[in-house]
């Protein structure tokens, strides 16, 4: 029961903090003091108090986009185990639901973008659809590897097993997987080097350009959904990288939170020390991630 409450508490409240940590890290690298760590919370509070401006050319599809996206990510957050604590919802094959909940959310965002009829948002939608197709195989290879190593078909089964022993046994495979998943983590969450969440240049954006017409509470849903997605995928990633357990429940929760914050700092560091890729380079890197993860699969099949 305590675990469930802590799970829900973290899922609902922690995601914006990750964004705050990333932007603070970037600010420190740039020699600035940066925005307060809690700035994303203030931003969300501000957006949810605001009114909305809706374009005349849009229909219910446009308004449903952010809502559906946020709903799908919220459901996905119930399927993912945090640290070594089982998820509130868990059944055999929930990993397929997990993967396609994100796809459904993306589909809703793309429809909402196309609904505006704007050429910018159309371009963004095309880019998002292309790159997510290329990112999907990696996620599935990762799930296949974990399913095979754990013998379980649910996310909780895969990730709460003693992964320390698995690292000792199939370390090479997991290492490849970690590399591939980090690329996917950055790409799926629109971070540099794939996308620049801070740019104002609409011609270069991927994700941000699709939500240019959103405003007020709907934009708040988009931002919160994006933060939650980063949280969920980070939790998935961090569990594979740092599969430690202390035995004490509260200490394990603390360990999870700290490792998540460390990951946010790592993402901020990557964003600070490199520039964005040219858009034509992105597919190459995503396919590279796919190849890495397929090798990971081959290694455990031998």
């Amino acid at each position: 029961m305590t675990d469930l409450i802590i799970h829900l508490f973290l899922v609902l409240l922690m995601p914006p903090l990750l964004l705050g940590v990333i932007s603070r890290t970037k600010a420190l690298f740039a020699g600035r003091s940066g925005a307060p760590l809690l700035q994303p919370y203030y931003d969300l509070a501000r957006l949810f108090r605001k009114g909305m401006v809706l374009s005349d050319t849009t229909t219910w599809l446009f308004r449903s986009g952010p809502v559906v996206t946020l709903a799908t990510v919220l459901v996905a957050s119930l399927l993912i185990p945090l640290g070594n604590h089982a998820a509130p919802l868990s059944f055999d094959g929930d990993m397929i639901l997990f993967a396609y909940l994100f796809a459904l959310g993306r589909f809703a965002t793309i429809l909402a973008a196309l609904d505006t009829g704007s050429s910018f948002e159309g371009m963004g939608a095309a880019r998002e659809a292309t790159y997510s197709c290329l990112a999907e195989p990696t996620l599935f290879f990762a799930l296949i590897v974990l399913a095979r190593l754990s013998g379980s078909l649910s996310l909780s089964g895969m990730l709460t097993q003693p992964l320390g022993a698995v690292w000792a046994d199939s370390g090479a495979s997991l290492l490849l997987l970690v590399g591939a998943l980090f690329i996917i983590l950055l790409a799926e969450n629109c971070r540099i080097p794939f996308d620049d969440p801070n740019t104002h240049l609409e011609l270069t954006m991927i994700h941000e350009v699709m939500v240019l017409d959103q405003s007020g509470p709907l934009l708040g849903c988009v931002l919160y959904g994006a933060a939650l997605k980063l949280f969920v995928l980070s939790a998935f990633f961090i569990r594979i990288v740092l599969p430690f357990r202390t035995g004490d429940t509260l200490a394990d929760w603390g360990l999870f939170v700290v490792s998540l914050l460390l990951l946010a700092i790592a993402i901020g560091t990557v964003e600070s020390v490199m520039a964005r890729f040219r858009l034509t380079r992105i597919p190459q890197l995503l396919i590279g991630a796919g190849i890495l993860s397929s090798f990971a699969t081959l290694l455990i099949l031998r």
Partner: protein
Amino acid sequence: MNLPKEVRTIHNGGTIFLDDLPLLPEELFCQILLDAIDHGWRVLSYFGLPEGDEVTLFGLLGYKEDGLIAVIRSRVRESFPSLASLCPQLQLFEREIWEQCGIVPEGHPWLKPLRFSPLITGERQLPGVMEQYRVEGGEVHEVAVGPVHAGIIEPGHFRFQCHGEEVFHLEISLGYQHRGIEAGLAGGVHRRTIFQMETAAGDSTIGHTQAHCMVMEALTGRRVPARGEALRGIALELERLANHTGDLGALAGDVGYLPTASFCGRIRGEFLNMTALLCGSRFGRGMVRPGGTGFDCSDRQREELLRRIEVTRRELTVAVELLWSSPSVMARLEKSGAITLKDAEELGLVGPAMRGCGGARDTRKDFPFGIYRMKQIPTVTAAGGDVHGRVLVRWLETERSLDFIQELLGQLPGGGCRSGSLGASPPAPGMLAVALTEGWRGRICHVALTDTVGEFKKYKITDPSFFNWSGLALALRGEQISDFPLCNKSFNLSYCGFDL
């Protein structure tokens, strides 16, 4: 090349009596223009002056090898032959003459308004309302950007013809900033003129004001004391430093490379503050005045400037070195938005955009003026013609400018900084005066024609952006549309300098 004997040549900052200038027959005028451009002369300015129902066309050409400016004129009615298809750098000038004088360039490939100023007939035009180039086809899509942009920048409309992510063609439509500066100068010099010159293109205050002051000094026979020339040179280089530093930072920001972006953003402010230390204005307003400078530099200011330059040079070097040592940054800059040297020459590109293609053209060296007649500044070029080339040129010029300022401050000539009073004396009648300066964007050309009582009949300003916007459009051909902001920033052109 030996020019026909009808052509009069002068040097930068020189004058010529209008009566000495022969009226060439139309064919000879066109022939001289084409021949000269074929032989490496470049069009500096080309404009018309309506007189009754006739229009006098003036062509100014520059030859960098011996620093000569050739002036030719001809008189036409209703129409004149268009040379745009033979010589692309004349294209915009011909549209401008059509718009301003109401005479038609016969055979212009695509005659369209340039600044949408009210026509000779008095009819109002709305900016951007014209037929745009279109690529037809089911797979082609059109992306329209602006005139209102997502940043705090000036208005301009960009129309991309795209095939997926690839740009087939970019058309740039300006004119939203047209203020009628040239028209307002007729009958001058007014008291407001010098202030209008300072804001012709606000970020090139020193460049434009110096060109204007050189015109005024030529027309009134005023000499500038050595100290005044040195201070003008320092101000001009500080302006270049501030803008180049800002551009280096903004380019880093556009590729998402934060450290350089943040540092350069701050260091740009340091250079602006150095200008403020000289004259009290961060943009150099009030610094350059006919006869010299509006402000002198005390020994205390000189020491302070030298100290600040030293510190800032160290910080800037660290910030910019980060760019060259980041492979991900280099991967973005190299091979983006490339222009060949041949195309650049044909379009008549100027400034860092030209030097980034490998073309060694720099007004400070080719047509020396002011302090650059006594003290040379090396011309830097970079190969490639891509964004990287333009970035590299900016950095190398920054280093040269820092050296130049340090040397000048170390040996600042004595004496006064200005000859005569601050006010402008009346210009000589019946003259044509030309002044070229090298602003941070490139060559700035001011031409003044005075009437029989010494008032301006015509004052023509040619900003470097006038040439370079075409270069940006060309650089985008076959590029990814997502690279447009980067290419655009690497040119960083002025909207108001074009629109005037």
